[in-house]
């Protein structure tokens, strides 16, 4: 039996049809380990070789990749949910009930969508922290940090618009509060609220607008931004890492002596730089892909496990007449809600706007260009402490809003 199978596999993989699919041979030589990356559209996001430092697990903790994986999970589960969901105020809540109770595997899909969304908010924020604390946004990567801030905003926007869709009490009042916050913005505030809601009250107009934003506009923006984000990682020579020491001289590649790569505007200079610091570079196929596959398996398994045991909440049908007490936004907005409790203009508009502007400016203000690629370098004590305090204060606000606020937003103790 076995020789028979092997013969057929060999015949199949040696055939012209197979060779037209896969342009590399059996992946058991370094040449084919390179070709498998460059000749596969999904894998060629990767370079053929990556820095040894950048594939160390504890350097990145895989947070960027994990965020992307969760985004893919959200796209797939979201498309599946869209086969049943109806964006109408009279049918939306019922279609979610159907997904939860009568559609085969509907509940687990909705759970996965919800928990992956929460997970993505966490991994995106942690990825930003990783990039800050390793000073990975230093020149030439400033602009990719800026793209990253917009990716964070898209993630939050997707979460927020997704919240309205079930049309339950939480959805209705979270959106009432959220869009009222927009109306505090100077001059254009009321107009923004009117456009967001497609009217003056949270109703059918608002539901269909949030649906379009959630399913079309924001995912499209996200995919465009992701393309730029990844492309720039490649153009900047891979992700950041510590200063290289070793053999800096290039091993001039003379495979094509007739070509001048500089003239072709592929790389500066006359040769390709793949063999710079050879001792620091490893093959992607052998050193990164297995880790990515393993991380994907673990993450998907964990997400499934969580989705089997924990159900995505669904409150009662939206009732414009009754505000639940307390009316709480999703947890990642509770820090904002806590601020808004002090002042809607300062907490809901000015501070968030200043935070976003501050984040965008970070790579252009923090430019000492030392200790790149090192976690929590002592030489970057001051910026790290400032950013750390910022992250801690956000976390504290969220914890206060989640556990220490009860009816009428009065202070309560959770025990």
């Amino acid at each position, binding site marked *: 039996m076995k020789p028979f199978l092997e013969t057929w596999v060999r015949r199949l993989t040696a055939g012209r049809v197979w060779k037209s699919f896969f342009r590399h041979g059996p992946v058991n030589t370094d040449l084919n380990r390179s070709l498998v990356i460059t000749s596969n559209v999904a894998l060629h996001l990767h370079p053929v070789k990556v820095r040894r430092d950048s594939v160390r697990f504890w350097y990145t903790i895989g947070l960027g990749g994990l965020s992307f994986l969760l985004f893919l999970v959200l796209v797939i589960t979201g498309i599946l949910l869209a086969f049943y969901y109806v964006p109408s105020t009279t049918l939306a809540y019922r279609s979610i009930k159907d997904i939860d109770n009568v559609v085969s595997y509907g509940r687990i899909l909705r759970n996965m969508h919800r928990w992956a969304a929460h997970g993505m908010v966490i991994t995106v924020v942690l990825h930003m922290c990783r990039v800050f604390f390793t000073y990975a946004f230093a020149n030439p990567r400033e602009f990719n940090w800026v793209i990253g801030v917009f990716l964070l905003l898209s993630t939050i926007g997707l979460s927020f618009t997704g919240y309205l869709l079930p049309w339950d009490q939480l959805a209705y*009042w979270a959106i009432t509060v959220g869009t009222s916050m927009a109306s505090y913005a100077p001059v254009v505030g009321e107009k923004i609220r009117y*456009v967001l809601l497609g009217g003056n009250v949270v109703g059918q107009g608002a539901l269909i607008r949030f649906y379009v934003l959630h399913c079309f506009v924001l995912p499209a923006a996200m995919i465009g931004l992701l393309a730029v984000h990844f492309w720039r990682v490649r153009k900047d020579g891979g992700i950041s890492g510590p200063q290289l020491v070793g053999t800096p001289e290039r091993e001039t590649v003379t495979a094509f002596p007739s070509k001048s790569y500089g003239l072709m505007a592929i790389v500066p200079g006359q040769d390709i730089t793949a063999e710079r610091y050879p001792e620091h570079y490893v093959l992607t196929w052998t050193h990164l892909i297995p880790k990515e596959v393993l991380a994907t398996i673990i993450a998907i398994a964990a997400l499934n496990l969580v989705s089997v045991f924990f159900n995505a909440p669904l409150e009662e049908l939206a009732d414009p007449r009754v*505000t639940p*007490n307390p*009316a709480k936004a999703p947890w990642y907005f509770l820090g904002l809600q806590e601020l*808004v*409790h002090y002042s809607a203009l300062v907490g809901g508009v000015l501070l968030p706007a200043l935070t976003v502007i501050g984040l965008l400016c970070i790579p252009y203000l923090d430019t000492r260009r030392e200790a790149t690629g090192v976690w929590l370098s002592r030489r970057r004590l001051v910026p790290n402490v400032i950013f750390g305090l910022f992250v801690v204060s956000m976390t504290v606000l969220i914890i206060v809003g989640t556990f220490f606020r009860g009816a*009428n937003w009065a202070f309560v103790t959770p025990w």
Partner: protein
Amino acid sequence: MPERNTGSDTSRPTRRRFLELLGKGSFVAAFGGIFTTTMRFLMPNVLYEPPTTFAIGEPDDFAPESATFLEDGRLFVFRRPEGLFAISSICTHLGCNVRWNAERGGFDCPCHGSSFDKNGKNIAGPAPSPLKWYELSLNADRQMVVNTRKEVDKNFRLQV
């Protein structure tokens, strides 16, 4: 040989420069127009929202000294010896429904902890302004009619 105009001399208007500006200008104008019309497209002209003027029943449906919450209209109706008046339940902070606190004789908001006195004046919390007072009137059927587009001051009373 006469000097050739390469278009790089921007100090004096030339045909080339004029056409260049015309081209760029029409480009900007076209995209400005598309942008403006798209923005305008997103602002609906007809809304299918609940009416802002509606009947709430006869004055005698409201007992003397009562505070009645009408959920559909999102307002409170008060009956006092000097007349009837209506106060909006929409919190001026972020739009939640406030609740009547009978013990204190005031309103509390469940969302962000604003509180208001018996006249709807904001006394604590983040609410920036008092609750709105709506105009009340009687129609031909002796039904009371609320107009939520018409605000009145806190001395308003409907005498019956």
